[in-house]
């Protein structure tokens, strides 16, 4: 029983770290890219159409790590493999 509670507690901490650090990293990346986009658009406004598609695709790539992290966090929240090992042993 105590082992189950410990696993749940540590899993909760892990989920928080996955989501929090993933979101922080993605936000820093998006901030840097958006600043570069605005700078580029201010220097050469005729390049805006070409930059728009690239910015969208790169937004998706930067967010990919966060999305994968969200998926992993949901796996640990709803179908925790560590927890099932302990419950199967009991």
């Amino acid at each position, binding site marked *: 029983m105590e082992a189950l509670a410990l696993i749940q507690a540590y899993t909760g901490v892990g989920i928080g770290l996955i989501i929090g650090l993933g979101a922080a990293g993605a936000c820093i990346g*998006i901030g840097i890219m*958006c600043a570069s*986009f*605005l700078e580029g*658009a*201010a220097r050469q*406004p*005729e390049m*805006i*159409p*070409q930059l*728009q*598609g*690239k*910015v*969208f*695709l*790169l*937004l*998706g*790539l930067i*967010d*990919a790590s*966060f*999305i*994968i992290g*969200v*998926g*992993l966090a*949901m*796996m640990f*929240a*709803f*179908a925790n*493999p560590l927890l099932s090992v302990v419950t199967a042993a009991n």
Partner: protein
Amino acid sequence: MTEEQNSKSGLTTSSNKVFGKMLQWQLSATAVVMVIALIVSGLHAGISALAGGLSVTVGAFFASKIAQRNSNEAATILVNLLKAEAVKIIIIVVLLFITFKLYKQLVPFALIAGLAAAALFSGAAMSKLDKTELEI
């Protein structure tokens, strides 16, 4: 047609091709992972991989609709792109939540594999972007 209008119509054609290519790459990656999961771990793993890949693809589809809104101002374009990204993340989280809650025979690792493949392969459309820019 003025130069500005030419530029705008060029943007629409180029963007449509790029977004279409992105969705095509995501669907292809999902299909490949689904087939591998189906062969390796069985039917439920295949369905899980499909669910993971489709959640990302559906999110990207709605995000691309928002991102395609035309504007001449860089700030407006940026706001549209950020809105699109927010909508994409919300849709993906909701779809994943529904999948985890409703699908009892879910194979989590297959779902993560499908999700990761679809999310990472969206960047493969960059190659198409360079080609369409040359055509304009």
